[in-house]
């Protein structure tokens, strides 16, 4: 520790100039932060469990325990269930954005990032991109598990992939919502506590697990047209058939609406949070 430390002759690169330079930097910074979040994910056993084992348990639970008691006219329950489980899983996964950001704030990492010559947006875009990558991994596992328990999509490969894409985009838009929560919470525990009361009604008062027409009539409106249900219905139509266009349009509309409102909100929270 006593060796002389070299004189600071050359510092970091000079700040980017021009739109091209700035864009190149924000992409490079986003990738750096994405990589960091994905590396962290592989090293937190709880996070791995949360994004793999837990959704598999949900599949098995609904397929073999509750499924027998749920009547879905026109299709096997497992075919009805899988699109719902997909959306429920990625929606639950989005909570990790709020917890992760709250933790970064708490531990002073964001403070360090703010004093670095990096793109301001990269902390948020890197986090949400890491979530997107994780979700790709999750839907691949879920597809395999689904097939193992008897899920048989009937519409072909392309519509199936279309459904997956829809789910990933929807999850990405949710990540920004949970980023707002994470940036508003005092710590990671609060972030978690704030997230679930939002998540439970959206995923369970929905068409994800049971047909909406068995619910009380006053609940049916919400349960049919709320964003999670709309996305589930769109995926179901794309994967196992049925009227598609209206649901897909509604789901894309929710996704775009969320992005348009939540990205500026999250960026604003990030800038003003002290």
């Amino acid at each position, binding site marked *: 520790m006593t060796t002389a430390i070299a004189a600071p002759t050359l510092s970091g690169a000079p700040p*980017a100039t021009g739109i091209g330079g700035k864009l190149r930097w924000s992409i490079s910074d986003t990738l750096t932060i994405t990589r960091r979040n994905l590396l962290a994910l592989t090293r937190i056993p709880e996070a791995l469990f949360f994004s793999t084992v837990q959704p598999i348990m949900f599949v098995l639970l609904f397929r073999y325990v509750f499924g027998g008691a749920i009547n879905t006219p026109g299709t096997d329950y497992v075919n009805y269930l899988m699109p719902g489980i997909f959306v429920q899983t990625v929606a639950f996964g989005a909570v990790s954005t709020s917890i992760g950001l709250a933790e970064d704030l708490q531990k002073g990492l964001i403070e*360090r990032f703010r*004093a670095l010559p990096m793109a301001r947006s990269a902390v948020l875009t890197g986090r949400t991109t890491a979530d997107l990558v994780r979700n790709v991994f999750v839907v691949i596992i879920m597809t395999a598990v689904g097939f193992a328990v008897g899920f048989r999509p009937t519409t072909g490969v392309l519509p199936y992939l279309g459904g997956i894409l829809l789910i990933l985009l929807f999850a990405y838009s949710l990540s920004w919502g949970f980023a707002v929560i994470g940036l508003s919470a005092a710590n990671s525990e609060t972030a978690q506590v704030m997230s679930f009361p939002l998540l439970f009604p959206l995923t369970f008062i929905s068409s994800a697990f049971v047909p909406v027409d068995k619910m009380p009539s006053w609940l049916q409106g919400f349960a049919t047209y709320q964003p999670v249900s709309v996305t589930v219905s769109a995926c179901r139509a794309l994967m196992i058939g049925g009227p598609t266009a209206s649901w897909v349009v509604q789901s894309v509309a929710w996704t775009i609406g969320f992005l348009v409102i939540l990205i500026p909100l999250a960026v604003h929270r990030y800038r003003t949070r002290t």
Partner: protein
Amino acid sequence: MPYAIEVEHIKKTFKGKREVRALDGVSFSVEEGTVFGLLGPNGSGKTTAVRILTTILQPDSGSARVLGHDVCKKAGLVRSLIGLAGQYAAVDENLTGRENLVMVGNLNHLNKAVVGGRAKDLLEQFNLADAGDRPLKTYSGGMRRRLDLAAALVARPTVLFLDEPTTGLDPQSRNDLWEVIESLVGGGTTVLLTTQYLEEADRLASTLAVLDHGHVIADGTPAEMKADLGATVLEVGLSNLEDARRTGAVLDTIGPHSPMVNGTVVEVTVDNGPQAAMLGLRALDREGIVPTAFTLREPSLDDVFLSLTGHSTVEEAHTQEDGGSPRRGRRGRRLRAAEEALPIATGELS
């Protein structure tokens, strides 16, 4: 000599349930290639000043420049010239030491090859080479703090900000860190250091500003501050409280300053050390008092702080989580000293 840091009349108020005026017109400047110590108890505004200078916060009014660049208008440029190591080791728990350094290097947009080399060098310089590829979860507090400082150096900053770099460290780690800082300054880096340890400021800083409740209440070199305080302190240790009380009365007669009786220790500020020592010993001898210790010492920065603020630097340290428990005995004594110093300062005792 040109200034690396210039701060002019900075004000910052935090609004909320309770309005806190963190900085109330603070000005100071730091010459290039020197260590500047920002000294003060918790809540005096030190961290707020660092956050403004490192572009994390915007001041309500006033201006600040780093290497001539305004921290608000040229924030991006300033960020590429500075390094910051904060009060809490801001490193990613889930990454290894090396991955943390590489991440910070990449975010500084350094050449990939350069980043790898610098990460390796820094891990070696900070005695972390063996631990470099282990996740930070396995690091001790001192190792984390060293890595945090290493991360602040990846981009070879010209100006380095260290916010309480040694708070909560054990004496050995603290000494190691001091050596690193001295070596950096030897290499030409300008360092702004905040601390609540007067010993640390005395050892490292060539100039100081003392902050209290958002105001600079004194600045200058450590030597100037001690000189301003007056002169030497005569410290007499006694074997019992009664002797101490009597000694207090006796020493009150040898000079213009009132002594401070503090348990079995009596302290008095004197203008001429040797002369006061002779007078003091003679007077004690006449009274038949035999001291157990008799010391002349330079005033410490603790004395400076006490005389400037009427309270010790450690007043608030008791509420702090990691208030340096090994030093508690000394802190306790200083705290009592502070309470008793107040009436003396207003002349009520004499």
